[in-house]
């Protein structure tokens, strides 16, 4: 029997770096030399901070390109960068720089355009703590997930991708260690796309997967 699963929670603090970009060439330069914590914050940090959910632009770079640079072409290209598809944040940062440089080469006018509002680079500081909740077997998740704070979901489903080598969630990683076959539920958990959901939506999705596979109604 594997050891009980430890439910953790996390809270994020946003820290201003004082670095800003007023146009696209500056954005490219500053992204290239930015702290990876900044890349992390601007791709994922929005899920834990106050913001209006923008279904069109899932990361801050894309939203800035659209709203402050009036460049929908770049905004769409930045928006489609899915962080879970890159092996680490260094690779993600390189992709970002590449997309920005391609756009600069493609259209001279973009080079000269000044942003309505500068892009402010922000990084996060994370506090991770033990909730005291222990899960002995996957079936218990059905009752436990509805009571979890969004920080727990963030930590086990999003932050896990930074910590685990094969970049998936903590729940399925733990369930893999059982003799009992949970492969169907593990597969479903690993196909959840955390990038296109808010955390409350992610919570409902994950809970739904456990309910469906373990034959319980979602209404508990």
């Amino acid at each position: 029997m594997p050891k009980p699963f430890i439910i953790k929670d996390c809270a994020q603090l946003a820290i201003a770096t004082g670095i800003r970009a007023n146009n696209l060439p500056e954005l490219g330069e500053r992204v290239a030399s930015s702290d990876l914590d900044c890349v992390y914050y601007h791709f994922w940090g929005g899920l834990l901070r106050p913001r209006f959910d923008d279904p069109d632009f899932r990361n801050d770079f894309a939203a800035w390109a659209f709203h402050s640079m009036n460049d929908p072409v770049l905004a769409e290209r930045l928006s489609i960068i899915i962080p879970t598809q890159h092996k680490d944040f260094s690779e993600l940062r390189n992709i970002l720089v590449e997309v920005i440089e391609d756009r600069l080469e493609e259209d001279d006018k973009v080079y000269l355009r000044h942003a309505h509002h500068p892009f402010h680079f922000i990084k996060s500081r994370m506090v991770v703590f033990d909730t005291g909740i222990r899960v002995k077997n996957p079936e218990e998740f059905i009752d436990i997930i509805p009571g979890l704070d969004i920080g727990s979901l963030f930590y086990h489903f999003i932050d896990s991708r930074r910590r685990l080598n094969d970049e998936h969630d903590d729940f399925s990683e733990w369930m893999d260690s059982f003799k009992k076959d949970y492969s169907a539920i593990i597969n479903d958990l690993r196909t959840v796309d955390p990038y296109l959901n808010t955390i409350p939506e992610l919570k409902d999705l994950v809970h739904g997967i456990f309910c469906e596979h373990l034959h319980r109604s979602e209404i508990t």
Partner: protein
Amino acid sequence: MNLELTAYADIVGDDVINHLKQLASMLKGLRVVHVNSTRQGGGVAEILARMIPLKNELGIDASWEVIEGDTDFYETTKSFHNGLQGNPVDLTKKELEHYEEVNHENAENLRDILTDADVVFIHDPQPAPFLSHFPKRKGVWIWRCHIDVSKPHPPVWKYLRNHVNDYDASIWSLSEFARKLEHPQYLIPPSIDPLSDKNRDLSEDEIDEAYKLAEIDPDRPKVVQVSRYDRFKDPVGVIEAFRLAKRFLNLQLILAGGDAKDDPEGAEVLEEVREKADGDPDIHILMLPADANVQINALQRIADIIIQKSTKEGFGLTVTEGLWKGKPVIGGAVGGIKLQIIDHHTGFLVHTPEGAAMRMRYLIMRPEIREDMGKKARRFILENFLLTRHLREYLTLMVAHVTKSGDRIVL
């Protein structure tokens, strides 16, 4: 769970309250002191009045101290405020010496409590020089700036920077306000308390009392701005916008302001507003006492539209209050208002009285859009700008500083 926290859980959910309790469990018994310049009037006092009791309920030994100053002191600090928000003010050597002297006297009065505190939060420029008076301080000192410092008058900022640079950290409402300083600058927007008299649900009778504050006609559309009489809140611009919109609509305007001890310019601005209104019976100019929270709540609830046409704004809690009451808000596209008004979703951002007039006309003519925006607005505030989120960030910050770890703290 005690009664107060239970009441919050009914609004935000048990998960949020459990999260706060777990964070606070790492800070049990910590002595935390907040220092600001007024007990009543203004957003800072409102936040502290509600946040301190909650911190105490969570097991933290929190207290709130208020500095004392004379008229000259508050006139200087008001000039600071204006200078930090970009006005080219001149501060004389004598004024600055008096400012520092008043700070010195207040620091002496609070010496024991602040020297031994584990965490000290100093709010805004009024008590900013405190740090230099406590060379033997035990705890972590954090400066909290609630002002829009996106484009300060340089001499004013340079002077103040000397007083705040040595703090262990600072807190700002928006990234565009943060300055070059040699310490971490945290971004924490403020919040409203859904259980306070200013924001709790009201009975019909309580709401109807608002009509008695002036001769307000319940049957005609109403636009409400709640704000101190401060030029940055642009009450004169609101009257201009109202007059432009009134050519097409049978509107009423209610300007409800109060007095804050640390704002000596209020009376002067109120006079300018009265002059601009020129006795128009559809412009109701109210001067409410600092504790008129239920009346303000009721005024916001009888409004068809809330307006906050500021030209500079640290955050704009009256915007938050209006959105929480399910009203679309027309706001100046500045400072923290931009964080709250999402154009076409929770209200409209405007740049001129003409823009505000256009949006008043648009919204008054479309009740279904007002209702739709109002629903989105309330949900947006529920998820982002209530006291529980604000408290979570303060607790996280304290955990981060008390444990003195790096960018990732695993406990």
